[in-house]
């Protein structure tokens, strides 16, 4: 059953920061999607699960409510990760447009335990044909997601790698809910994967990390699986979770 949603609130937002992830706006977006009546029942994926493979990209869209998912191509080498981008709560993914060559496809995996809704393409098309605030909301959501992706792509030209690593860790700290030893945030990314997301080589990542250690912005300890970030007077501790084993697509509605 499709519902009319209240007038969307995105139109009052301005400033470049609006395209970077914020918990409050993600919550508001999820609430608005839930009002639309377009979402499936929530599906849970364990860490490492394939949400869909590149050979089976769906036409439907997916909305992430909890956790972190990664867009991945096959790793080019053993040293280099296949992960190229992350999707955070409130963001859309999927909606494979069809007709693309194999080299442009990517698979989507759950990096942590994830809660995801499926949004049927047919239902969305019906809502758009009907019009109203729901139709405008759908178009605005796609546009907003697109501008977020563009802002992210542009970030590599506007910010240095160290600033982008700090920003990425801060974002992950507010998204990740799993706590490891002594309350550390469980970080499900290896160094080579962090390097991939930042668009640099693992070797460059090592150099950046050492420089940031020297500047006392980050500290690595405990056989280097612990990482602490100092930012804005706060200290955030991460515990790196290695070996997030890839598992075939399984979802549960529990």
């Amino acid at each position: 059953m499709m519902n009319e949603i209240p007038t969307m609130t995105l139109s009052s937002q301005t400033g470049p920061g609006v395209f970077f992830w914020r918990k409050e706006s993600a919550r508001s977006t999820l609430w608005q999607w839930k009002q639309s009546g377009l979402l499936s029942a929530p599906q849970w994926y364990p860490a490492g699960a394939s949400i869909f493979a590149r050979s089976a990209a769906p036409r439907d869209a997916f909305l992430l409510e909890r956790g972190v998912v990664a867009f991945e191509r096959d790793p080019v080498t053993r040293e280099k990760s296949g992960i190229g981008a992350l999707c955070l709560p409130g963001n859309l993914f999927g909606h494979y447009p069809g007709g693309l060559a194999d080299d442009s496809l990517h698979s989507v995996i759950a990096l942590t335990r994830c809660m995801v809704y499926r949004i049927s393409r047919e239902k969305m098309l019906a809502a758009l044909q009907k019009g109203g605030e729901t139709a405008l909301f759908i178009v605005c959501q796609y546009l907003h997601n697109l501008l977020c992706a563009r802002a992210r792509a542009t970030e590599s030209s506007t910010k240095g790698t160290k600033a982008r690593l700090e920003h990425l860790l801060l974002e992950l700290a507010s998204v990740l809910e799993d706590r490891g030893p002594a309350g550390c945030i469980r970080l499900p990314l290896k160094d080579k994967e962090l390097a991939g997301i930042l668009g640099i080589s693992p070797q460059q990542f090592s150099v950046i990390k050492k420089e940031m250690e020297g500047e006392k912005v980050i500290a690595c300890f405990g056989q280097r699986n612990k990482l602490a970030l100092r930012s804005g007077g706060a200290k955030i501790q991460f515990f790196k979770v290695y070996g997030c084993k890839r598992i075939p697509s399984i979802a549960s509605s529990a």
Partner: protein
Amino acid sequence: MDLMNTWNGQSNAEPLSWNVHRFAGTLDRWRRLVGETAAVRRCGPETLLLSENSPARRSYLVEEGVLALSHHLSTGKQVFLTLRSRGQVFGHSRHVLNHSFELSASALTDCVVRMLDSQWLIDQIRGGGDAGVLLMEQHAFDLYESASALIDLIHLDASARLRKFLMQFAAAAGVPSGEEMLVKVPLTDGYLASLLGISPQQFSAVKRKLASEGKVRHIREKQTWIISTGHHQFTETVA
């Protein structure tokens, strides 16, 4: 499929990821909505159609030609975002989302565009029908493609990205696919280098590499690039 094989031309798959043909039928659908009243503008290569000074409510429907959307940085550098071609709309996000992420649009070829009022677009979406569907389809394609482009940036070197850009440009310009594709690109090397985010020196090296590998030839005096797809590769080296 092995990614590198695709780019070495050893794959039977069409190495074209940017399927402009999907938008071919959309122009007629947009025309039915827009009617003949919207003003038409014609412009040549490197004409700036949209910048931070453009009226926020102005958007465009591309009827002919290819344009580049980019983001201009305060340093003067530009970051290439995507191409726009026949049947696609651009410029509307500023009014629809009331944002300040500055986009600029410049023509890469001779172009014919129809000027739209972004508020008209919003009214069309609210009224139901094809406008919302067309925009959603365009944005869904862009969103999927933007994730791929981010992954390309990490996994592909500058020469692979140049070749991919030329393939996308060929598709956007309506060049039929074949073993050899001739694409007229009326842009200087410096402009292309800035679109790819590399220096002119790197661009020259990239061009030499692609020519020596038999994948791409540039005939500067004719402003034409010849792209080898499939099994056929050039045997001669052209600077």
